């Protein structure tokens, strides 16, 4: 059975390079973006961040809680809410058809049309990201009724079902409600929803953090497979650096609102430049090596005053 969503969109020239070195044309450019929380004593959550996302690449965004990676992701799509305010910078969208758009100054209606169609998101902990009182089909289809108003009802239903099957969820689940699905299934539904309009970029904010490790691996495999088939770029936000090393093309490390290192995944692993990157890499216990190594090595470094 042909699946409408897997129409091959990969361009030949983008296939020429190996995956890790795939650096096609830029699709999203962030220049000197700063976000401030206007509270009693204002706090800079994102400080002067610049990065470029290439078409079809997986860019990992790593850092601990509160470093500003989620704020950055929300700000790009202007989903940030007061008291957060974008104080400086530019976000430019380089569309497939050649046009450039300044996202921060898009009119509200144009922003609404842009969202999900060109850039979609998968939020963390799909516990609450799905509307509890309407069924899955309604939530998938309203994306289509909003952004593809010309589509007929039968076509919409087919696409919604196809999207679910693409992520490995049975079509019959269209009738279910959010509370009837397991955590892993809900996350898959979120991913299916994000794919519906075949966006060019997907921002994923800790999509697997709330799931157990086995389910986590399955979801990750789906994401990489879908990216390979449909060729969308991914900004993958997580605190789990080893996970990023597995799937990303490039990795950006954030600390206190700034990007302290941005390089190919391979390089981050083999030759980390910044002290914080090195600290992050050391903070994950390994499945190999001596038992107790991980804990003891931290203690030893403290004694020497080097950590």
């Amino acid at each position, binding site marked *: 059975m042909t699946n409408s969503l897997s129409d091959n969109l990969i361009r030949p020239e983008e296939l020429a390079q190996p995956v890790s070195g795939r650096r096609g044309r830029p699709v999203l450019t962030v220049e000197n973006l700063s976000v401030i929380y206007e509270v009693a004593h204002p706090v800079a959550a994102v400080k002067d961040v610049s990065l470029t996302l290439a078409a079809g690449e997986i860019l990992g965004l790593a850092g601990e809680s509160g470093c500003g990676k989620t704020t950055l992701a929300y700000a790009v799509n202007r989903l940030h809410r007061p*008291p957060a*305010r974008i104080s400086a910078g530019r976000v430019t969208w380089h569309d497939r058809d050649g046009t450039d758009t300044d996202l921060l100054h898009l009119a509200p209606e144009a922003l609404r049309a842009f969202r999900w169609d060109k850039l979609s998101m998968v939020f963390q902990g799909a516990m609450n990201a799905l509307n509890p009182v309407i069924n899955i089909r309604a939530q998938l289809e309203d994306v289509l009724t909003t952004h593809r108003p010309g589509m007929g009802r039968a076509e919409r239903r087919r696409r919604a079902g196809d999207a679910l099957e693409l992520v490995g969820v049975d079509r019959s689940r269209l009738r279910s409600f959010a509370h009837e699905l397991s955590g892993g299934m809900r996350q898959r539904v979120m991913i299916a929803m994000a794919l519906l309009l075949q966006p060019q970029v997907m921002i994923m904010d800790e999509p697997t953090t709330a799931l157990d490790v086995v389910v986590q691996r399955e979801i990750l495999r789906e994401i990489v497979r879908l990216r390979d088939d449909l060729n969308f770029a991914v900004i993958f936000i997580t605190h789990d650096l080893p996970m990023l090393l597995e799937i990303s093309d490039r990795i950006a490390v954030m600390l206190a609102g700034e990007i302290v290192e941005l390089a190919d995944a391979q390089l981050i692993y083999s030759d980390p430049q910044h002290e914080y990157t090195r600290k992050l890499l050391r903070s994950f216990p390994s499945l190999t090596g001596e038992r107790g190594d991980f804990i003891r090595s931290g203690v030893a470094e403290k004694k020497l005053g080097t950590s």
Partner: protein
Amino acid sequence: MTNLTPTTEPSVADAPEQLAAAEKSSPSGGRPRAGWRLMLPTMTPWLAIGLGLVCVIGLFGILGPFLVGDPTTIRNLGMAGPDGDFLLGTTQTGQDVLAQLAFATRGSLEIGLLVGVLATVLSAFFGIFGTYIGGFVDEAFSLFSNVILVIPGLPLVIVISGFVPPENRGLWTIAIVLALTSWAGSARVLRAQTLSLRTRDYVAAARVAGEPSWRVISVEILPNLLPVLASQFVFAVISAILGEAGLSFLGLGASNSSTLGTMLFYAQNGFALPLGAWWWFIPPGAVIALFGTGLALINFSIDEIINPKLKNARRYRKLAKASRKVAA
């Protein structure tokens, strides 16, 4: 009708991470309120107005009777408007309206407080204690509360009052009847809160450590329930005053006491409004309205403690307005 379902689904404090993190990391100011101060509402203009109204009327009721003349003296003046001698005019039998108002306010406050306390004690017993014990007691209490809740209150009060001969309808009888018919709603709200607290870690820890039930309730659970209890008490007082006023207006009120409700009853029977004697009819109702509004405004602030999202919403509004001004 007063705010009958204040935040029916109270959620426990979970300030959005951004605000909390932002305020924590700010260098000097934005000091987090420690311990007990967390329980107190932040001062807003609305809270100030509410407290002001309640205090003024409360003082009027407590001290007023000592300062005004005799409310029962009958004079040959008929219904006279406000003038130098009588600030609020006279009733159809020449009685001083202002004096009556002072005593009536005191009467209403008394009954409001009495019923408020009784109803809150009842709802605390059925709502908190029953829920905490759990098991069959919990189920039974809950069923009992729900059944009482569903049976319409005022008709029940009317029927009970109807069967009691008028000479026995004293202040205490009316108070008890009102309390018995109004505790059920509070009990349900308190039960919901206790249910969510019962499963908290620190309660489980106390039980495991072997603390007796009464101690766990009073030390671990009650302090967290205080805002909700306070809100329910305020609400009980409002509805008691309104309920008593309604009863008196229907002629079923306490027979030997003077409240704002009985004052309105006499005003209505004396054809105050149709004859244009607004000074007799308007003030008692206005006092009830202002007092009730004051209490409701206080309840707003307590609601913010129970449901911090409301407080954040207010803060966001202020910040949004401020940042809009800055951007402009």
